[in-house]
C-alpha cells in the first residue's frame, strides 16, 4: 500500500502469549495498550498463577513504576496480537515538573483501581466471615 504500510504504526507488537513485563523485574516505564488485550497475572511462572485483570485498548498498565522504585508486582502477557506504547519514567517525571495537571488522567485511573481493589477486599472479607460463621456453627 502506498501510505499505510504495516510498519506505519506506533509502539511495539507482541504476539499471543509473549510476556511484556515480568513480575519482579526492575521497572522504568508504563505501557498504554494501542491494540489488543493484555492479561495481568500474578506468579506467572508457578502453578498457582492467576489472572488479576484483563485489560483492553486505551488502558494502561505498569503505571506504579512511574511513582515508586519497586520491582514489578505482576506480569503482563499478550492475549492475541497486542501493540503497546511505552512511556518512560524519566520523561514522565520531567513532564510532571513542567505541568502538574499531566498526572491527572493517570491518577484518575489509579483511583479507579484502588476503588476496585477495596471493593474486592470487602467482598473477600465478607466471604471469609461467612465461611468462619459456617465453620463455627
Amino acid at each position, binding site marked *: 500500500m502506498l501510505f499505510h504500510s504495516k510498519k506505519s504504526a*506506533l509502539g511495539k507488537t507482541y504476539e499471543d502469549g509473549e510476556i511484556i513485563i515480568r513480575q519482579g523485574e526492575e521497572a522504568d516505564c508504563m505501557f498504554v495498550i494501542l491494540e489488543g488485550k493484555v492479561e495481568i497475572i500474578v506468579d506467572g511462572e508457578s502453578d498457582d498463577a492467576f489472572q488479576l485483570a484483563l485489560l483492553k485498548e486505551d488502558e494502561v498498565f505498569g503505571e506504579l513504576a512511574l511513582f515508586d522504585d519497586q520491582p514489578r508486582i505482576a506480569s503482563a502477557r499478550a492475549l492475541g496480537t497486542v501493540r503497546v506504547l511505552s512511556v518512560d519514567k524519566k520523561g514522565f517525571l520531567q513532564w510532571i515538573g513542567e505541568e502538574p495537571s499531566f498526572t491527572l488522567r493517570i491518577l484518575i485511573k489509579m483511583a479507579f483501581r484502588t476503588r476496585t481493589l477495596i471493593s474486592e477486599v470487602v467482598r473477600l472479607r465478607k466471604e471469609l466471615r461467612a465461611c468462619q460463621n459456617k465453620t463455627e456453627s
Partner: protein
Amino acid sequence: MELKNGSRIGIIGGGPAGSFSAIFLLDLARQVDLDIQVDIFEPRDFTLTGPRGCNMCGGVISESLVQKMASDGIHLPDEILIDTIEAYTLHSDISSVRIDDDREEMRIACIYRGGGPTGAETQTPLPKISFDGYLLELAKTKGARHIPERARGLEWDEGFPCIHWPEDNQQRYDLVVGGLGLNSPGLKMFDGLDFGYLPPKSTKAFISELYFGDEEVERLLGHSMHVFILNIPRVKFIAITPKGPYATLIILGDGIDQALVKQVYGAPEIKKCLPQGWEIPVQTCTCQPKINIGAPVNPFTNRVVMVGDCSSSRLYKDGIGAAYRLAKSLAYTAISHGVSEEDFQRFFMPTCRSLDWDNRLGHLLFFGDALLRPYSWIQEAIITVIRQEQSDPDSPRHLSSALWDTFTGSSSYRNIFRRSLHPVVLFNLVRVLLTNLARQLLHR
C-alpha cells in the same frame, strides 16, 4: 474573574494549539462539573491537499509528545500515520552514523498537517486523516463547536472580548484563545484589543515534499530521519524525513533563498539520499513558513491568551509539543484559577518562561555548533564517539542520547546541554581527538 456554568470560550485557530486547548479545557471542566461552551473558528479544510489544507510544518511528532498524548488518552490512529521513525542518521561532510532507538519501538510519528502534498490527490490510496483534522474532530467529540469561518475582528464589549465573523455574526466571550501560527493573517486582529501583544521574532524555514515513490524512499531513507550538519553558510540544520512515497526536506537557517536551496541539493551528502539522476522538479509542494525563534511580548491580558507558535514555542523543533504544553497550562489556569491577567501571570506565565529560557540555551547550542562546524576534525571526533557508543551495548550512550533528543525534540535544551557536557562525553571526545592527531602525525 472565574469561569462559571454557561461560560463561553472562543478559540481562534483550529490547528493543534487551538484543538489541544479545546480538548483540555473541556476535559478539565468535566472533571470539576463545569459546563462551558467552546467555539473553534477554523476556516481551513484539512482534507485538502497542498497549502489550502496545510498549516505548513515538517510534520514530525516527537517521541515525548507521542508518549504524553498516549498517557492523556489521545492515541494517534494508524490512518494518520504516514510513516514512523526508528532511527536518526547523522550526516556530516565527512561521514555518517546511525543512532537507533534503544527500545526498538516506534515512538516518532510522521504526519501531514493537511490532506498531503500538492498532487497527492492524484494518488491512491490517499492519507485518510490529517493530524490537524484528527485533533479538530477529537475536540468536537469532546463538545467543542466548530465554526468553519475566519474570524474577522476582535473588540472589547464592556470588558469582554467579542469575536466578529462573516454575515454580521458576533459573540461575546468570557475567554478568547489565540491558537494561531505565525503565518496566520488572523494575528493582526489581536491589535484591535490593544493589550500590548507583540508576536515572537521569526525566521523562515524551507519545506519541500519530494516524490520518490514508496520503494525509493524505503531504499534510500528506510525508517530513519536523516539529519545533515554540513558546512554550508547560513544553514543551521537540514533534515530529510521519510513519508510514505514522499521525502520531506526541511532546511532551517538564515535568509534561505533559491541559491542556498540549490547549494543544499548539490551537496554530496544530500545527493546520497536522493534517487540517482534525480532532478529538482519544476513544481513541488514547497513552502517557506515563518517559524518562532523568540519570545512574545504580553501574550495575555484579562480574558485573552495566546497559545501555539504565536506565543512561546520551542526553538527549531517540536512546536506541536510546545503547543500541547501551553494548552495544558492554559486549561489548568482557566478552569482551576480564573481568566484574569493576574491568573495568567501566576499560573500560565511560568510555562512560557520555562520555554523561553530553554530556547536561550538552544540558541547557545546552535551558536556553539556554528563555531565548531567548519572544523572537520571535530565533526569526525563526534561521529567516532557516537559510533563507539552505538557499537558497544554496555557503553553509556551520553552523546548518542543527547543528539537523539536534539533531533527528536524529546528533551529540553537544558537537558541536552547537560548531557553534551557530561565528563564522559568530554573525555571520549578529547581521547578521540588526540588519537586522530597522533595518527596524522605518525602518517606524516
